[in-house]
């Protein structure tokens, strides 16, 4: 299809046109600049024209430059507390456009009809080139073209400062360039809008040189914090539609139960409550929330389910995984850095370390349980009001469930509690249920899960185990390293209400399911010890536990959680490296430095060594103590490369052998993300991740019996309190020569576990190779 334009000008592949355009086949035409306030006012939400959810004749696009010199940006990525869309994105766009941070007055995020690119709330900085950066770079070139034409000065003789273009003794502001015109820039885009990764801007527009950054690197404040703190923000939990009913869902008795019969509420007690049944999905709706809650409780007591006992129970989890799980159907994934031949070296090793490391299921455990408001209109249009990490993917899943097309589904995005990955594939539990109940009653319905629903019917971070073998040579260096990672499928994106209702969903994880939903276990933890000459890293994958056994194909559903897959692989690797260092009689930090080549890896290790006051010596410490009621102290280290960022962490702990209680007393972390976009926001993200990671190390564990998950609240699934936090020191290493900005939120939560376990070994001489390190477990190991 052709682009209709009056006067195109050539901008590195994309097209700048006056007037309007028609979407080109296979390429998303992206609007730029709207000019004239009248047209801006007309920029209202329309029903989506799938796959392009934006009405191309209106102003829904990536970036708008307004006549008053203000700028609006749009992104499919919703904020989940990282703050990137309100800070880093504005800083990145400001620098690419050469405008002040404050000029970017509006950030539109998440809404499926008002944002262009989809994808999830993860990897915000796109390893240095998020979509919004390219959109800004293209826009900048278009503005230069316009200015060149307007001022009659060649493009290369123009310079821009604070949104004013100067050249040949003349100057003009961006606002004046776009005033009274209707301009549109089309840029090349590829991808699938409703897939987990969404759309990607193609091409290579010239980017602002790092040396010219003036906005990136400054600690600008996150604007949404102000409105949240002042109770001025509308959260998803606050959405109330006319005629809306409140609902609670009664989930099955077990993860394999089907409905026998649904109970009914006492009509005298709950005159307005109504029970909705669709397959094995049972919902109770009522005009008030309190009536819905009480009636649902009563109905739950009278609802009958089939019984099911098809899970191993967490006491037998690792035995089940090793002996019962099918590790043969998915191909073994070998890492790219794997090299040499480990087998003969391991067979004739001077010293050899062999061990298995185990890591439990954990809950994302958002502080607010999942909820959604859905409004299914008489014409079949579905509106969902929700806090979701991937609204476009949700849209696709709801369309699949209803047998319609995504253009009938509109997701309105609002703030809510952090999900830590749980909804990055499009759903967190309540969305599809709200849609089905709204469809049934013909009114808007608000589904709010209770705390126990959220613990027992949501997904979890996958459990895993790894077998490690390391050969140490006479010089105390690693001669061969082999790690075999075993993990069930880590991402099940099927909406659970649709499964219960017996409606269509994507398939449960299979070998050939696409990308992250496959049973194939890819290597997620980039190797950082380049001096090791014989290396084998294998990933072994399988189905989720109970997935095939459950009559309703539910079982224990997994979902990526903060540092997904990599946590499961980095914990065993880093703890094993600590053990290898001990076996070699080497200091754990120096041992790492001696096996790394990458200067950034070495520099974070040195930084964390200096900042933590690390005394260089082998572990365990001289005269380790594993008995008695006096706390014993030790320290451990860990290292990770994730999303372009190098991380190293030192944990200093005190363990009381008689009780097994571990207290992390000091946590030091060094971070080199390349260019630091916003030091304050990075520091806050790292601190938060650190706290979560200490809990992952010490006590977080999803527990289950033969029928289902047994955690039900914050007592049975404790998360950290303020009393649990150590002294935390964050060392930020700004490294502009890298030329890109790496991620800064994930990883921090994964670093504590191997460092704490190594610290326990340092203090006591005893090694624990299973997470979490709960007091009773530590006590038992120290006694043995």
């Amino acid at each position: 299809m052709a682009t209709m334009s009056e006067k195109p000008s050539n901008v590195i592949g994309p097209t700048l046109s006056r007037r309007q355009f028609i979407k080109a086949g296979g390429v998303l035409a992206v609007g730029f600049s709207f000019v004239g306030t009248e047209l801006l006012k007309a920029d209202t939400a329309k029903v989506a024209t799938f796959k392009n959810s934006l009405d191309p004749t209106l102003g829904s696009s990536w970036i708008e430059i307004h006549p008053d010199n203000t700028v609006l940006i749009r992104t499919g990525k919703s904020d989940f507390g990282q703050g990137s869309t309100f800070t880093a994105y504005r800083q990145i766009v400001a620098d690419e456009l050469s405008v002040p941070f404050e000029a970017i007055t509006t950030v539109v995020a998440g809404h499926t009809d008002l944002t262009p690119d989809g994808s999830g709330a993860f990897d915000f900085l796109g390893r240095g080139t998020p979509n919004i950066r390219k959109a800004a770079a293209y826009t900048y070139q278009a503005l230069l073209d316009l200015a060149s034409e307007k001022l009659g000065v060649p493009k290369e003789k123009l310079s821009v400062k604070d949104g004013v273009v100067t050249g040949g003794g003349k100057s003009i502001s961006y606002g004046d360039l776009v005033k009274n015109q209707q301009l549109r820039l089309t840029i090349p885009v590829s991808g699938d809008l409703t897939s987990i990764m969404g759309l990607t801007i193609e091409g290579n527009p010239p980017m602002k040189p790092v040396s010219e950054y003036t906005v990136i690197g400054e600690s600008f404040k996150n604007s949404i914090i102000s409105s949240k703190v002042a109770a001025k923000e509308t959260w998803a939990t606050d959405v109330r539609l006319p005629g809306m009913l409140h609902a609670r869902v009664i989930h099955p008795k077990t993860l394999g139960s089907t409905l026998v019969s649904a109970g009914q509420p006492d009509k005298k007690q709950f005159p307005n409550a109504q029970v909705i049944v669709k397959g094995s999905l049972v919902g109770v709706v009522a005009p008030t929330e309190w009536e819905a809650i009480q009636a649902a409780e009563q109905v739950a007591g009278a609802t009958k389910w089939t019984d099911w006992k098809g899970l191993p129970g967490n006491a037998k989890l690792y035995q089940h995984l090793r002996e019962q799980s099918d590790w043969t159907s998915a191909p073994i994934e070998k890492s790219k850095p794997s090299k040499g031949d480990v087998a003969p070296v391991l067979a004739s090793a001077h010293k050899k370390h062999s061990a298995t490391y185990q890591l439990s299921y954990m809950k994302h455990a958002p502080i607010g349980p999942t909820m959604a408001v859905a409004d299914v209109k008489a014409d079949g249009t579905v509106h969902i009001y929700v806090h979701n990490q991937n609204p476009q993917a949700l849209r696709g899943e709801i369309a699949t469930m209803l047998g319609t097309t995504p253009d009938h589904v509109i997701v309105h995005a609002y703030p809510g509690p952090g999900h830590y990955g749980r909804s990055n594939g499009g759903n967190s539990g309540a969305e599809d249920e709200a849609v089905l109940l709204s469809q049934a009653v013909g009114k808007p319905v608000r589904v709010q899960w209770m705390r126990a629903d959220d613990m027992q019917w949501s997904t979890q971070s996958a459990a895993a185990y790894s077998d490690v073998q390391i050969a140490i040579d006479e010089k105390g260096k690693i001669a061969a390293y082999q790690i075999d990672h075993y993990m069930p499928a880590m991402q099940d994106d099927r909406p659970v209400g649709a499964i219960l209702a017996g409606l269509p969903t994507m398939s449960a994880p299979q070998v050939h399911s696409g990308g992250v939903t496959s049973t194939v276990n890819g290597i997620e933890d980039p190797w950082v010890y380049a001096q090791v000459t014989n290396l084998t890293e294998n990933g072994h994958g399988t189905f989720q536990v109970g997935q095939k056994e459950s009559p309703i194909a539910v079982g224990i559903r997994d979902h990526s959680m903060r540092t997904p897959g990599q946590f499961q692989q980095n914990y065993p690797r880093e703890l094993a490296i600590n053990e290898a260092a001990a076996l070699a009689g080497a200091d754990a930090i120096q041992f790492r430095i001696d096996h790394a080549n990458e200067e950034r890896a070495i520099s974070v290790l040195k930084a964390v060594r200096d900042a933590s006051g690390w005394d260089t010596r082998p572990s365990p410490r001289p005269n380790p103590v594993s008995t008695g009621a006096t706390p014993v102290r030790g320290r451990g280290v860990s290292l990770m490369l994730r999303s372009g960022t190098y991380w190293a962490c030192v944990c200093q702990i005190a363990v009381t052998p008689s009780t097994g209680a571990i207290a992390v007393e000091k946590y030091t972390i060094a971070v080199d993300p390349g260019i630091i976009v916003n030091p304050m926001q990075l520091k806050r993200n790292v601190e938060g991740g650190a706290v979560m990671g200490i809990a992952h190390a010490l006590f977080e564990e999803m527990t289950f019996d033969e029928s289902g998950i047994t955690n039900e609240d914050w007592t049975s699934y404790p998360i950290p309190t303020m009393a649990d936090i150590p002294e935390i020191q964050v060392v930020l290493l700004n490294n502009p020569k890298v030329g890109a900005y790496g991620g800064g939120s994930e990883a921090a939560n994964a670093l504590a576990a191997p460092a704490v376990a190594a610290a326990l070994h340092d203090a006591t001489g005893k090694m624990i190779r299973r997470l979490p390190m709960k007091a009773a477990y530590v006590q038992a190991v120290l006694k043995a």
Partner: protein
Amino acid sequence: MVTLNVNGVRREVQAPDDTPLLYVLRNDLELIGPQFGCGLAQCGACAVLVDGKETRSCVTPVASVANQEITTLEGLPARWAKLRGLSAEEAKSTLHPVQQAWIEEQTPQCGFCQNGMMIKATELLESNPHPTLTQIKEAFTTSGVSPNLCRCGTYVAIIEAVQHAATIMAKRS
């Protein structure tokens, strides 16, 4: 019919006596500061001040607090203005020092629990204007019916914000 005194205003609500205060505040009075976190008084996301004491609205029957002084997050600026005798004009443009400090220190991540954290901080600083680190930790862990929980792990930022708020409050007095 229950009569409530919320943020200095008398409000009459039609709700059964046993309705948890949280649902009345959110659904009937459109006060959206308090959030539903657990419904079990285990996390603090729903906290409000009742006669100055941090209270979990998710388990508090509405009739039990009739005629008591209820303050939600929305009422913190006016509470501060009254405490310090600010003019109506000043009060309008002033956030409570706790809120100011929460912004200055960039405390929230997702922010869902921070209503309860700010309510707890207000309770603490009204009774102890210069809390030590130990006292701050006690306030957020052992002083209430449960610790105030933050899943994003913002405790370092909360401690810094409480200390910052104490400084702001001391300056104004």
